[in-house]
C-alpha cells in the first residue's frame, strides 16, 4: 500500500489529507500515478501540482511503488 498525501487546497478538493492505496500494475512512476488519479481528480493533472516521493522532489518522473509516501504539493507559500 502506498500512502498518498494532499496539501493545501488539494485537501479540500480531494476531500482528505491522506489515503492509502494499492497501486495498479501500470502505475510505476509519478507520471502514470498522476494520470491514474487524475481521472477522478482532474486538479491533480495541473502542472503546478508537484509530486514528492518519500519527501523528495526529483526532476522527471521518479518511480513509485507500494510502501512509498507520495505527496501532492500545490504551489508553496511560506514566510
Amino acid at each position, binding site marked *: 500500500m502506498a500512502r498518498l498525501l494532499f496539501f493545501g487546497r488539494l485537501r479540500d478538493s480531494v476531500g482528505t489529507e491522506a489515503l492509502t492505496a494499492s497501486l495498479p500494475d501500470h502505475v510505476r512512476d509519478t507520471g502514470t500515478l498522476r494520470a491514474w488519479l487524475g481521472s477522478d481528480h482532474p486538479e491533480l493533472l495541473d502542472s503546478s501540482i508537484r509530486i*514528492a516521493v518519500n519527501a523528495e522532489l526529483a526532476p522527471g518522473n521518479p518511480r513509485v511503488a507500494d510502501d512509498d509516501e507520495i505527496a501532492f*504539493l*500545490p*504551489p*508553496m*507559500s*511560506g514566510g
Partner: protein
Amino acid sequence: MIRVEAQPFDPGAELAAFAARVAEVGAIVSFTGLVRGRSGGGEVSGLELDHYPAFTEKTIAGIGAEAEARFGLAGLIIVHRHGAMAPGEPIVFVAAAAEHRRAAFEAVDYMMDRLKTEAPFWKREQGPGGDRWIEARPADLEDRARWG
C-alpha cells in the same frame, strides 16, 4: 538554527538571543513576517498554515545551509510557525549575522525569497467571505528568480 513550531514566538526575544550568540560580529539583519490584518478579501480573522512535516525542516535547513555558504555568514536563524494563528502574530523570523552589512541584507532577502516559493507551507486565510487558500504572488516568483 532552524525551528518549525506550532506555538507563538516573540521576534524580539529571538533577535536578542541571536545577537547574544553572534556578538562582536558587526551586522545583523532580521525579517519578521506577521499575519496581515487585511487582504484582498477584506478583514482577516485568522490564518492557518498547513505544512508537510517530513519535508519542511529538510527544505528550510537546505535553504539556510545554502545562504550560509553563499554569503559567508557568521550565523543564521529561521523560525517558522505552522497551524492556526491570529492577525498580528509572527509567522516567520529570519536573521543573519555577517562581518559587513551587505552580506547580512542579501542573505535574509535570499532566504525569504526561497521560503516564499519553496518551503512546503500552504496558507488558508479566514475572512468575511469564508476561507481561501493563498498562493505565492507573481512578485514572489520574480523575486526568487533574481538569485538564479
